[in-house]
């Protein structure tokens, strides 16, 4: 998983901040609160993100290798913020829950941490909002495994053949009301 050094982070934040207003509190908060551990421990961001996704989607398999892949996939813009996002979750968790790590919290507590991020300033809210929707898209659509789909919602993915019996119902006339056209084209 790609990690971002503190120096790279500051440079990126500088670029982002250049486009923001002068009163850029969230960016300052992120910079000052970005713990060294997120540079030193390659697995930390992954663990925090897994804890995040399993709070957003309770029941999602925590050991699924693709569970947090979208959040660190360079193909999507969120990847460059993954480290900051994980750090922000950890900081909020520590403050709310007596210094405990986000990834060690109960789902109920993690939910409260995420809700706090969603209620924060506009920039933070955007980050959290994007992280949640990205998790939902990746999981429910099964974007990394076209064959698997998403068993949780009965989505089989691609290349699963169905007979006509599976697609429709017998005696379809019973569903129909009158038609207004002879051939489907309205005059």
């Amino acid at each position, binding site marked *: 998983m790609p990690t971002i050094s503190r120096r790279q982070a500051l440079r990126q934040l500088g670029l982002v901040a250049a486009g923001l207003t002068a009163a850029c509190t969230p960016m300052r908060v992120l910079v000052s609160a970005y713990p060294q551990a997120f540079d030193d421990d390659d697995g930390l961001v992954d663990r925090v993100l897994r804890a995040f996704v399993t709070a957003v989607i*309770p029941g999602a398999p925590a050991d699924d290798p693709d569970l947090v892949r979208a959040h660190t996939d360079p193909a*999507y813009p969120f990847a460059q913020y993954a480290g900051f996002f994980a750090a922000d979750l950890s900081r909020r968790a520590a403050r709310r829950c007596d210094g405990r790590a986000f990834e060690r919290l109960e789902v109920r507590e993690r939910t409260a941490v995420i809700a706090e991020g969603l209620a924060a300033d506009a920039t933070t809210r955007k980050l959290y909002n994007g992280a*949640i929707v*990205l998790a939902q898209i990746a999981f429910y659509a099964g974007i990394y495994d076209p064959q698997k789909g998403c068993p949780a*919602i009965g989505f089989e993915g691609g290349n699963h053949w169905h007979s006509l019996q599976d697609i429709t119902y017998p005696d379809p006339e019973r569903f129909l009301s009158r038609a*207004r056209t002879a051939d489907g084209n*309205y005059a």
Partner: protein
Amino acid sequence: MRTVHTDVLIIGTGFGAAAPALRLAEAGAKVVMVEKGPQVQTADFRQTSDPQYLLKYIKGTPGDHLSLTYAEALGGGSGFYEMVSLRAPSLVFDQVDAQGRRLWPRGLDRRVLDPYYDVAERMLHVSQIPLAEVPRTGLVFARLMKNLGYSVDRARYAVRGCQGSGFCVTGCIYGAKQSLFLNYLPQAVAAGAEIETDLEALSIESLPGVHRGRARLLANLPYRYQVLCRRRAGEREQVRFVARLVVLGAGTVGSATLLLRSRATLPLSSEHVGRNIAYNGSVKVAGLLPDSFPDADMFTGRSHPGMISYEFLESHGITVHGVKALPLMLVSAARMSLGDERRDPAWWGEPNVELMGQMRRRMIVLAAFGLTPPGASLAVSGAEETRVSLPLTSGLELYHEDTKRLLESILVRNDCRLVRTDFLDKSLAPEAGVHFSTAHQVGSCRMADAQSAGVVNANGEVFGCPGLYVSDGACIPSSLAVNTSLTILANAERIAAGMLDQYGLRRPVAA
């Protein structure tokens, strides 16, 4: 730089481009088509929800209150459409603007287009879906309407041998959906047309003599336009095409963008380029079926569920459809929660998981396509960024509110539980206020009786630019209330027929 001389240069390979290419090539003209997107064939398609695969072909234009989706690939949108192929109802052609002026050119109506619809339907093997093949979601939609005494009709599709896989919108891997690279384009090539893909038209320039008197025969026309193109891959080769006739078939966004970028090099006098975009005012609502209903199936069966209701066309100016969609499209389009959900958060966490678990079998989504006025505009910036803007009028807000209320009432009166849908913008944040999203955009270079009202005449020829045509969705002057592809194709057939007449070209007798 390579220079290519041709009788006709056609920009684009989609529904508006394919018919002129085939008809002019059949008539003996030297035809070259240039396509910005990549070559694509049935074997290239995948049944996948990988956004990176889709983003190779599917593009978007974001904007205020409206976002547009289209495809860039050989065959334009035909590789990725839902293959719904319906004729525009007659009343569509009678729409008027705020001053009471007819939006369509005088004399152009359904009756005039019908012979060209016939041709287009034959070419794409369009037929009404057999009742025995209507997907479960379509039947459940029909039941919803039947319970309230409303009519439904089986829709029409461009398909032969549909397998019902549900992946129409990622490209049909069976070659059943009638994409243009299965019919029009290979026939055009067989008739002598050449197609170059990955080649983007950058600008059009009129050559000296463009205003010379009209020659009757194509062979006697001077070379009137040069079009500068650039290869999108490899060494970014530049190619200069010099043509007697140029046909823009690059789509509502592509054709208008190209004309806007060519303002300095074309004698364009119309102020309407990029304006007057109509978009079939699409409004969507969702609900969960009550226990008394059988299961729907969001994922299985063709992407469009087979049924359409014209019940409210004359009274409200809308058609109503059931919607099927892959999870990728649903989840990336809107965040969803039950309307009566008391738990917080509702759109993620346990409540959302419970809702998503019902998506496949118990969720029903309704969409309305409406005759909303052509009010949106494109803006092209120097950085090649195109945006669309839709001024939100009180009338439009009222349309959205009324239509949403009507659709919701269909669900509520059937005892469905409403699902709240907050539609998402490009950054995955909820859109503020009313927002329309569509792939049915038309009108950015609309046909009109005079250049004071549009960009091209009823023959598709750009006012002030003889020999320069727009034959795609850009020239369609109004919303259609039904899917747009068949009307774009039929109108392109009509424009092509007019070109054959104008330039003394005739189809071979054998054809």
